[in-house]
C-alpha cells in the first residue's frame, strides 16, 4: 500500500479483514480492504482505529459499537436498526427519533459468523456465487451444532452449497432475533456482499445493506 503523508487514515481492523479509509488533502475518500494480517505490516499513523484486532488501550481507539452508531447515522434517518455482522461477532444499535435507544453485542459466541462461512467455503470448495437462498435453515444458536448438521447432511448426499446456504439462513434468522425482530435491518459488514445472507434475512424483514465501511466512516466524525 502506498502511503500518502498528507492524507488522514482510519482503520476498522477486524478479525479477518481490515477496512482502511484514506481522506486525501482535497477531501476525496478512498476505501480499501486488506487482510488484517497484511494490514498489520503497514506503517501508518492512523487518526482513529476500531475493530477487534486494534489496540484497545490506544488513545485513538474507538469502541466498535460507538463507531457503528456514528457511521450508521451518516447513512440513515432518525429511526433505524443497524446491525454489523463481522467475522467473529455481531453488534447492533437502534436509534429512535435521532436518539440512541438500544444496543447489543454478541460477545460470547462467535462461531456462526463470517469467519465460519469463509472456512466452510474453503473446506467444501464452494464459491460464494453458488450459494442460493433456501427456505430450510439449520438451527445455529450454537455454531458447532450447526456445523455438525452440515457435515451430517453432506455425508448423506446433500450438495455442500445447499448445506452452507441452509447454515447461512440460520445465521440470518439468528441475526434477526438477536436484533429483537425489527421491521427493517440496515446491515453493515462483509455479509452485505453475501446475496444468500441478504435474501435469507429478507425472508423476515426489510433489509438495507450499507456496505463494509460503516464503522470506518463513523471514525471520521468528531466526538460530541
Amino acid at each position, binding site marked *: 500500500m502506498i502511503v500518502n503523508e498528507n492524507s488522514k487514515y482510519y482503520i476498522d481492523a477486524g478479525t479477518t479483514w481490515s477496512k482502511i479509509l484514506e481522506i486525501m488533502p482535497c477531501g476525496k475518500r478512498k476505501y480499501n480492504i486488506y487482510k488484517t494480517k497484511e494490514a498489520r505490516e503497514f506503517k501508518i499513523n492512523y487518526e482513529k482505529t476500531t475493530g477487534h484486532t486494534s489496540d*484497545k488501550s490506544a488513545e485513538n481507539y474507538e*469502541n*466498535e*459499537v*460507538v463507531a457503528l452508531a456514528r457511521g450508521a447515522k451518516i447513512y440513515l434517518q432518525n429511526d433505524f436498526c443497524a446491525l454489523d455482522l463481522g467475522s467473529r461477532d455481531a453488534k447492533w444499535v437502534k436509534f429512535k427519533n435521532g436518539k440512541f435507544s*438500544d*444496543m447489543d*453485542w454478541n*460477545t460470547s459466541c462467535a462461531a456462526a459468523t463470517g469467519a465460519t462461512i469463509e472456512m466452510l467455503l474453503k473446506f467444501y470448495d464452494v464459491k460464494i456465487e453458488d450459494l442460493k437462498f433456501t427456505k430450510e435453515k439449520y438451527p445455529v444458536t450454537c455454531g458447532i451444532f450447526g456445523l455438525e448438521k452440515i457435515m451430517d447432511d453432506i455425508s448423506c448426499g446433500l450438495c455442500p452449497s445447499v448445506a452452507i446456504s441452509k447454515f447461512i439462513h440460520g445465521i440470518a434468522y439468528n441475526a434477526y432475533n438477536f436484533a429483537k425482530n425489527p421491521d427493517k435491518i440496515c446491515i453493515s459488514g462483509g455479509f452485505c456482499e453475501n446475496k444468500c445472507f441478504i435474501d435469507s434475512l429478507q425472508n423476515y424483514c426489510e433489509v438495507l445493506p450499507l456496505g463494509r465501511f460503516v464503522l470506518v466512516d463513523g471514525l471520521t466524525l468528531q466526538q460530541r
Partner: protein
Amino acid sequence: MKKDIIAFWGYPHPDLIKKTKQKYPGANWVDLDINFGYPSSKSTPDAYCGIIKNIFDNAFYLKDKIIKILAAVGKDKCDSGFFAAQLLKNAGFDVEISYFEDVSPLENLCDVPVCKSSLALKDKLSIITANIVAQRDYSHLKPSRARFGFWGVPPNDLSICDIFPPETHVFGWSRCVEAKNPANLELEMYVEKDLPTVFFAQTFCAKNVLAKYLAQKYNGLYIEIDGTPSSSAYAKIEAFLRLR
C-alpha cells in the same frame, strides 16, 4: 491455629450480627461473598454462580480460622445460599442460618446516602457491603446528580465499576442492603425512569430474570457476567454509557 473469624454471606439479620459481635468481641469479620482469589474448593459445578463459588472457596480456605458462619438463606439471599449453608454444615462448619425478610414500605426506609453519593462506584459497593457489619453513619455524604444507574449485586469482579463515572447511582439489591431491607422486592425493582441504567446480574444467578425484565422496561442495558468480565463486556457497557 487460633480461630478468630466470624464469616458471613449476604446480609445476616442485624439482631444476629449484634448478638455475635457481643459474644465474639475481638473477632475478624469476613464476607465470604467476596472474591479473595483463594484456590478453588471444587465444591460447586463449573456452571454455577461465581458468588456462591466464592462462599465455598473462601470457607474451605479459611476453615481452620473460622469460628462460625452466619448464613443468609432467605429471600434476602437465594436458594443457593440455603443449599450452601447445609453443605457447609455437613462439612463440619458451625453454621447459623439467618432469614432477614423484614419488608418495610418504601417511605419508611432509611435514606441511602452511599448509593446516591459521588463516590466511585467501586467504593460505593465496597462501603455498602462492609457496612453490613461496620454500621457506620454515612449521612454526611452529599447526593450527586445522577448521570447513570447501576442495578444489581456487587459483581464478583469489581473492575467493571471503573467504567462508570462517579455520578452513578446504585439500585437493586445493593440499594436494598444500604436501606437495611435486603428482601424488599419493591425497592429492588425501583429505578429512576429516565436514568440510563446498566442492569447487571452474575451469570447463573436467579436475579438475571429481574435484570432482563427491568432493562427492557426502562430501556437500559442488561448484562450478565461470569467471573471475570471479558474485554467485550467492558466494551458493551462503555458503548452504552457513551451512546446514552
